[in-house]
């Protein structure tokens, strides 16, 4: 093998030299300098990463794709866009979780939206209507599975004053608390138009999730039995 210090040896490739330099101890920089520089670089990198991530949470970013025009038009007719209190919930408030773990997952999974934008899956009103139920179903499934997590970033039963709600709303919210229901169980069409047969599809979503939970509990019980741990 050629000695790298031997000037007569053949010149190594650029990548190899960069790799060796990267892993060589520094002879001119102190540990303190490297720590401070690394700390500052970390702040800059993380700040930049987070800033870029927040840019993808803006309404302008979400609706910059042609296929989002229909959703946007429907949302602008709802109480989440215009209301007496002047509080607005934009796309990311309902569709992007706040918790880091879930937010990153949602951002990664949203790559599929870019793919479908490029493929033109819902590029015409006809195609959009054809897919409306499927798209709505996917969002309902996520919301039901997470106990309407994104709704609850703003709304919570504990903060509701039933005495100033309409009687029907107060009754139904009380019923929801008593029966352990979640926001999306009733508010499926809160921000976008509902597809035909939506109730049937929503029931299917609920049943599928309940079946999945039953299967999972069976799996855990089997593992516990195998390990000799009490299933209780």
């Amino acid at each position, binding site marked *: 093998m050629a000695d790298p210090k031997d000037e007569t040896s053949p010149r190594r490739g650029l990548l190899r030299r960069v790799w060796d330099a990267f892993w060589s*101890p520094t002879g001119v920089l102190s540990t303190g300098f490297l720590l401070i520089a690394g700390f500052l670089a970390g702040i800059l990198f993380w700040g930049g990463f987070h800033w870029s991530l927040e840019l993808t949470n803006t309404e302008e970013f979400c609706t910059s794709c042609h296929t989002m025009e229909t959703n946007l038009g429907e949302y602008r007719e709802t109480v989440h866009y215009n209301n007496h209190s002047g509080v607005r919930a934009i796309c990311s408030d309902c569709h992007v979780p*706040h918790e880091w*773990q879930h937010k*990153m*997952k949602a951002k990664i*999974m949203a790559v599929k939206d870019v793919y479908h934008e490029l493929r033109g899956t819902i590029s015409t009103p006809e195609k959009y209507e054809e897919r409306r139920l499927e798209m709505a179903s996917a969002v309902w499934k996520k919301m039901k599975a997470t*106990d309407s997590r994104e709704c609850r970033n703003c709304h919570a039963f*504990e903060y509701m004053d039933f005495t100033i709600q309409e009687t029907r709303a107060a009754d139904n919210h009380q019923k929801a608390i008593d029966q352990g229901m979640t926001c999306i169980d009733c508010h499926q069409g809160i921000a976008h138009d509902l597809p035909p047969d939506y109730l049937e599809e929503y029931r299917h979503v609920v049943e599928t999730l309940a079946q999945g939970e039953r299967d*999972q509990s069976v*799996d855990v019980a089997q593992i516990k039995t195998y390990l000799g741990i009490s299933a209780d």
Partner: protein
Amino acid sequence: MISLLDLVGTIGASVLGLPGILGLALGMTTRNWILAAVMGGIVGLIAPILLGGSHSMNVTVPVAEYVIGMLVGICAGFAGSAVRHKGAKV
């Protein structure tokens, strides 16, 4: 059973979350491969609880999230230990 998209999202979130970052950092603290993997795995196990919580919902974290978090944490621990082996004399 989670979908492929769900799986990719969960892995990506774990890599960019505590299991990936803290797992790597903890792995860099030791030259012992097993210890690095154990520390990464523990971070992967507790991360869904620490970062996946919410103030007013009541949802159990799926088993798949724990498993993926632990696997990513173990891999990150190994990677961190590899960095230690390659980049440090102590």
